[in-house]
């Protein structure tokens, strides 16, 4: 099988939404001598882009995003094991800790952002909803996160986002993390006001902003 066919197969493995299929094809690519970075960029990520595009057109749904992200991560783990550490690090866009803030149990938007981040190659630690500030910050420290993302869906909970920044400042580690905020009542102005580094008006924008922040980092 030539390289082009294998890359196409990698793309299709993402669209199969099956981790086992993706792992097997990733191994097949390695066995055939395909450069792992090329396998990622020209094979797996093409599949992810198709999934993202179909999601934005309401042809695929959140479960597909999650399954595609799982397939991607499974395939990337196979590829990573077979290449030097330096090259493996290039495959990872960044590490993110994401949560809906304390006393807020709206998490569908956050779930979509989380799935899209995973599908974009980020290592995502999703702490769920109703999560207190200390837990978010502790997790970010523990996994050496690049970005902390906090969602709030109510005017009465959005100040918890500011609390994350205050906690980081209190601990003297504000400069170690980028902080992004989002959710119904939040705005770019709010993000600036509380000293956040980024804001996403919607899920797609959140991913774009996260990528840009990582490029600048």
């Amino acid at each position, binding site marked *: 099988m030539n390289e082009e066919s294998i890359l196409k197969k990698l793309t299709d493995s993402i669209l199969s939404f099956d981790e086992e299929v993706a792992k097997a094809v990733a191994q097949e690519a390695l066995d055939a001598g395909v450069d792992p970075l090329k396998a990622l960029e020209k094979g797996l990520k093409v599949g992810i882009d198709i999934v993202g595009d179909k999601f934005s057109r309401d042809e695929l749904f959140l479960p597909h995003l999650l399954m595609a992200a799982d397939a991607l991560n499974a395939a990337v783990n196979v590829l990573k094991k077979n290449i030097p550490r330096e090259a493996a690090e290039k495959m990872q866009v960044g590490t993110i800790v994401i949560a809906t803030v304390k006393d807020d149990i709206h998490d569908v*938007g956050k779930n979509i952002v989380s799935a899209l981040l995973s599908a974009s190659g980020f290592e995502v630690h999703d702490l769920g909803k109703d999560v207190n500030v200390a837990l978010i910050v502790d997790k970010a420290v523990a996994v050496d996160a690049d970005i902390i993302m906090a969602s709030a869906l109510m005017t009465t909970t959005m100040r918890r986002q500011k609390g994350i920044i205050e906690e980081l400042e209190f601990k003297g580690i504000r400069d170690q993390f980028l902080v992004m905020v989002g959710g119904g009542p939040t705005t770019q102005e709010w993000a600036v006001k509380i000293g956040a580094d980024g804001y996403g008006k919607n899920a797609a924008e959140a991913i774009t902003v996260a990528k840009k922040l990582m490029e600048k980092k």
Partner: protein
Amino acid sequence: MVLTFWEAVERCATAPRMEEREFNMKIWKTVTALAKEYGFEYDNEVVVPTDGQLADEVFEAGLKAAVELGVYSRDTQRNVRFTEDEIQEFLRAATGKQSGYGEGVDAVEIIHRTPGSTAEPVVYGAPQTAVYSTPEVAYKIYTLCAQEPSTDGIWGGLVIGPPPPIEGKYEINANHPSEIYQYRKEVELMRKAITAVGRPGMFIRQNAPTAQATIALADPEFGVRPTDPMGGNLFEELKIDWNFANRTAFAIAYHTRVRWSAGHAFIGGFSGGPATAPIVIVAGALLGLFFSGADDEHIKEYGISTRVGKTHNRIKSRAARSCIYVGSLACQALVRNTRLPVCAQGCDHPVAGAGTAQFYYECAAGEIASVASGSSANPSGGARQFVCPTDHVSPLESKWMGEILKASAGMSQERARGIVEVLLSRYEDKLEDGYPEGYTFQQIYDVEKESVKPEFERFYTHMKDELEDLGVRFKERYA
């Protein structure tokens, strides 16, 4: 005998453990399989379905989904199941009406409607989820909404400032003393407003983020009465948590009259697309009965209802084409196959702002489709995009939705479909970008005189003329 709330809560503690993600994926897999079994496909040319057999099959699939899926208890991380017999017991008990909304001459009851029914739906006036700058603004909006003839009850927002509402310098936070205090003050304002307009028995509805703050609203003199809707039910896609169940427990103890179940789907979420989301709504409406707090005696005396809702995962309007379809089909499925009055969300949250043509189009499309599909009660008002900037609402929009809701009674699904299609053609391309931000209360009203400014009054009349040209017959008594 219907299964009690306490048995349902007990099952939350003893049912098998399950991770939430596993349950979420189970929702999607189950409804996808059911859609395949029944051959459900979304036809985006049909915004208001008229196929009764399809609605009946959606109900059948929803019932199967309810039995197969059960509910996810977030606090105990367990998958709680109920049998079909247990569900049917509740459905047999339903009386076809629900009384106990408000008191005295202002009291209303909701009755089970079917598609095309001539009975008028009950209207929850005033913009829910609105945020207000001052108590004076909130009070004026509540009074102006409450005095509308089409309004049967009002729904509260929250004064958040600026300046911050407590002593002019303290903000409101959830799960904090400020939350309990400020929501309670809001309800006092609402009660004062309905009394001022001579409708002191009108029902009021308020929801705080936490159960403790919601429970603290209870006060027969200044706050929420047993004759006001107060409680909780399933949250989002077939989930229950104590934050909501605690409200129901209190509702039982407080002898509230209005008990309900709730089914909700996220279109594009774990509910899947428009072909499967109605199944999730029906399943939620059926499973939510167990967490309603209603027992046989209560149902016999006051009845029981269900609330159905749908939210698109990306479009911040309930009047997106797929939202209208999903809401309409789920409502039809429930009203055709049960005696539960259905309270639906037509378009309580458009994407466009107050005082704009798109706002009027979106809300009209959602409400017309909903009433023609058999909804018995709808919230009106409409804070754009669910959470809009401070004071970006006005009573004129509440009036609009009230008039539309009452005018839609008796409309056939076919006629509704035709009107909704025309309305969609006027805003559908502006749901994600290019929608107008709209105006504030202060821009739309002469606040001192408490009257609509002439240019907005003229615009309102123009919009009514447009809708009349499309076939909506407004009723003089609500003008």
